[in-house]
């Protein structure tokens, strides 16, 4: 029998419902694995919540014993440390929140708890979700389970690496410009950013409010659909959350891996462009050929404003973050450095100066500048206009197509430290994911091959609120390929060879 930790949610469901295992056993198997492996391998976790997890697992077992059937009841999971958890330290990857314990749960944390999931812990991330490698964590970098000398991507690198290392069947991340899809691609797992507003942001520590969106990391598309069923839907506490009805995503997957009649757009700007690694390009082209073999109709299109995506993003997101991070001032819950005789401004400067890392400061400065009197029109306002143009690019394509496909990231996982001295090179990692975020569209990354033994992700972008369509295409691809069964060396490392 395979290890409990290698199962998908769907498989665990069967085991739990048949009472072959208890939720406590499932939780302990994952906790044991995290505790045995994490520190010496990927460093995915910032906080492991064993006691809390065991209590939740016992409660899940009681609900199971009472005959309750619920899709995620007793299923363990990990949350990116940017989602607030009552009484459990929530750092957003920053020293400035090193000892912050929220007094309430966020909406999604609460919904998942009600669904019966078991929180194993909080995952590492780039500080305040700013980064593409998780090297900007205020604590330590996370490593890629496929190659410990390489980055897992970011900013949700901890969640991606955790799922890729079999620490949990699912984890949640957040995506502002690619922070779910890019690490999913680099860690060889499924990562989904829903439509902006589909999943409540209440309890998500804000980076860029008009872009941030919570979404799942899983090892299969079916699991992704199951998690989406639990987290999608309107929340009165988030005024930007959408009122639209939520379909049953799992049912929408369909049973046949057929894409007959599905029209897929291939943006010229996503192929044959400088900076895309040949291995990635080859894998993605092969994946697209496979999609065609499933019956999809392909068409080349143009998303002409793609080239402005990164520049636009690096005005809008920093502008919003410059305001969102203003509350960490050393006066309230955050790190506070107060020396005798220090003025208020001294406290602000010292606390923020020492609490924030370089990338966060860089973006606060960028954003503050972009919003400043005399520069607003030239930068922030112009960026918002370009954002509209980027959205219109997609609108035009969706008049004739059901989805857009292309690479998730221009490259596979790169070595630790390779891009830390070159912010622009780091930013270009998100070239293909940023436009989707700016347009607020749903986008998924699914494993689509290996290049030099490292995972490549295929990105599928859908119309606003058409998560079901995106998941169906991804599912058809996945079920007719073997890429999702490729496991990282850490995932395949059995626990008893390490510890016992």
């Amino acid at each position: 029998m395979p290890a409990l930790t290698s199962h998908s949610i769907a498989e665990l469901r069967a085991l739990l419902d048949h009472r072959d295992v208890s939720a406590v056993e499932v939780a302990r198997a994952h906790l044991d694995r995290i505790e045995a492996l994490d520190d010496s391998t990927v460093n995915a976790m910032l906080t492991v919540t064993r006691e809390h997890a065991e209590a939740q697992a016992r409660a899940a077992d009681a609900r199971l014993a009472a005959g309750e059937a619920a899709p995620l009841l007793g299923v363990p999971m990990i949350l990116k440390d940017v989602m607030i958890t009552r009484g459990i330290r929530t750092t957003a990857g920053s020293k400035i929140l090193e000892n912050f314990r929220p007094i309430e749960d966020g909406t999604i944390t609460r919904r998942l708890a009600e669904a019966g999931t078991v929180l194993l812990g909080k995952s590492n991330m780039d500080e305040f979700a700013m980064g593409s490698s998780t090297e900007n964590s205020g604590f330590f970098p996370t490593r890629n389970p496929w190659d410990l000398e390489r980055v897992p991507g970011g900013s949700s690198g901890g969640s991606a690496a955790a799922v890729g290392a079999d620490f949990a069947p699912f984890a949640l991340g957040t995506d502002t410009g690619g922070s779910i899809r890019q690490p999913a691609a680099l860690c060889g797992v499924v990562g989904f950013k829903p439509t902006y507003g589909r999943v409540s942001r209440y309890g998500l520590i804000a980076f860029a409010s008009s872009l941030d969106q919570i979404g799942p990391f899983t090892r299969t598309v079916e699991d992704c659909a199951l998690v989406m069923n639990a987290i999608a839907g309107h929340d009165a506490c988030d005024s930007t959350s959408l009122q639209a009805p939520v379909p049953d995503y799992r049912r929408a997957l369909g049973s046949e891996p057929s894409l007959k009649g599905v029209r897929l757009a291939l943006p010229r700007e996503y192929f044959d462009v400088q900076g895309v690694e040949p291995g990635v390009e080859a894998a993605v082209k092969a994946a697209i050929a496979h999609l065609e073999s499933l019956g999809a109709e392909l068409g080349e299109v143009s998303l002409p404003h793609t080239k402005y995506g990164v520049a636009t993003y690096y005005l809008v997101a920093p502008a919003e973050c410059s305001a969102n991070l203003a509350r960490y001032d050393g006066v309230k819950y955050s790190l506070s450095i107060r020396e005798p005789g220090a003025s208020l401004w001294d406290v602000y400067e010292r606390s923020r100066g020492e609490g924030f890392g370089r990338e966060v400061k860089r973006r606060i400065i960028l954003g503050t500048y972009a919003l400043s009197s005399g520069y607003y029109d030239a930068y922030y306002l112009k960026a918002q206009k370009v954002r509209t143009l980027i959205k219109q690019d997609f609108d035009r394509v969706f008049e004739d197509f059901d989805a857009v496909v292309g690479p998730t990231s221009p490259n596979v996982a790169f070595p630790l430290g390779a891009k830390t001295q070159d912010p622009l090179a780091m930013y270009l990692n998100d070239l293909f994911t940023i436009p989707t975020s700016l347009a607020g569209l749903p986008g998924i990354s699914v494993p689509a091959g290996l290049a030099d033994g490292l995972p490549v992700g295929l990105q599928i972008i859908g119309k606003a609120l058409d998560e079901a369509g995106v998941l169906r295409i991804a599912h058809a691809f996945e079920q007719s390929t073997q890429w999702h069964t490729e496991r990282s060396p850490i995932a395949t490392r059995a626990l008893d060879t390490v510890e016992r």
Partner: protein
Amino acid sequence: MGVPPGVHIFDSSKLMTTTAETRVQSADTTRYEAVIGLECHVQLATRSKMFCGCPTDYAGSPPNTHVCPICLGMPGVLPVINRAAVESTLMTGLAIHATIPAATKFDRKNYPYPDLVKGYQISQYDLPLVKGGWIEISVDNTTRRINLERVHLEEDTGKLTHAPGGSLVDFNRAGMPLMEMVSQPDLRSPAEARAYLQKLRAILRTLGVSGADMEKGQLRCDVNVSLRPVGEAKLGTKVEVKNLNSFRAVQRALEYEIVRQAAALDAGEKIPQETRGWVEDRGVTVSQRSKEEAHDYRYFPEPDLPPIFVEEAWLARLREQLPELPDARRARYMRDFGLGAYDAEALSTDQWAARLFEDTVGAGADAKKAANWIQNDVARLRDAASDGQVLEAGHLAELLKLVDDGVIGISVARQVLPTVYATGRAPRAIVEEQGLGQVSDTGALEQTVRSVLAANPAPVADYRAGKLTAINFLKGQVMKASRGKANPGVVEELLKQLLEQTGTQFSN
């Protein structure tokens, strides 16, 4: 105040009497015209705060007891717009004849301060809920329209208390709905500024959107004031004055500023653009911040809140809910009750007085008498009374009827009113219980009159010698002896009768 009707030039002769303790000795302010604009912050009387569910009844509560993660700006929280606050603002807009744009949004106003939990205030920048509008004011029988620039909605900040060794912050007020009403620089005197504020308060109270009590901080006001030579079209450099916590403070601060600026201009100095603070106990303004230190607030659209679309149907519904406003009420009082302009204005701008007036008249009292009583005796009692004491209109009407019927005289009525006010008991019962009914029975009064005449031989002699006004003194003595109960008419008749009986001697 002595502002010449129709001319909006400041009257300096009145000025020096109210600005007692000033460094500025005097200045000839008649050479200048004051240009004044008011920026008012109105705390809305909603049940919950602007963006969270916290109750708004924090007055008198210990610090930081009416707070939640949202109004504390904790990481991860999001605001939700209070619909009642939006409606209160729209109602205010309708009441001041303003334009209500079809689309509006919230913006973030960025500045760091410990009383501002998020480091930004959710406010409105370029698309306020309400644009334009006007308020009519009457000063010295001249009625003028004062235009407004805009009315917008925002959240209040917390409150800092500076103590030795550090500062304390109370977030009970943080996130309270605050309506900012900005006038155009249409006001020309401190008296007009005060009238504007009073009319504004009347409108807000009539709408029920705010308690608008300046002492409680529900209505706060900053003023902008500049001077220019009379006849000059170009505006002078404006100075903003903050920290004005009463109508009196607004008026005094403006009076002070006008003299200060006039003196500076007379001395050939330039007025620097700055923010000054009013120091109540010294009666002066002091410089707080120059223009160079002004903030760049870096406004940008609040991404956590969707725009608000104000549909015509919504506005129509709110328009139907509009109560009768002070100006309409004033016109009605003049038309239907025959009140003069002064009485009508005073009553119509005071929600409490207006209600009492109408109810008292409704209970059968004469309108002019009721108006008179309410503005004098009742107003004095109300100023001195503690909260919760109410005067029933029926009781006031009854009191006036007792006077009309001759049961009691005016002086007894004045004597009885405080008891009615304090106890809530009916005047008739009090009059009967205390035996205050007016004595009109000549038989009963004659003995008293005779005693008074006996005790005052000199005035009696005066009267008889032809100095007829001496009767007034004697009448007063009789009234006093009867503790005000004697019917003055009957007393006078009796006095005349007895005094004219020549040769009659009075003895004790």
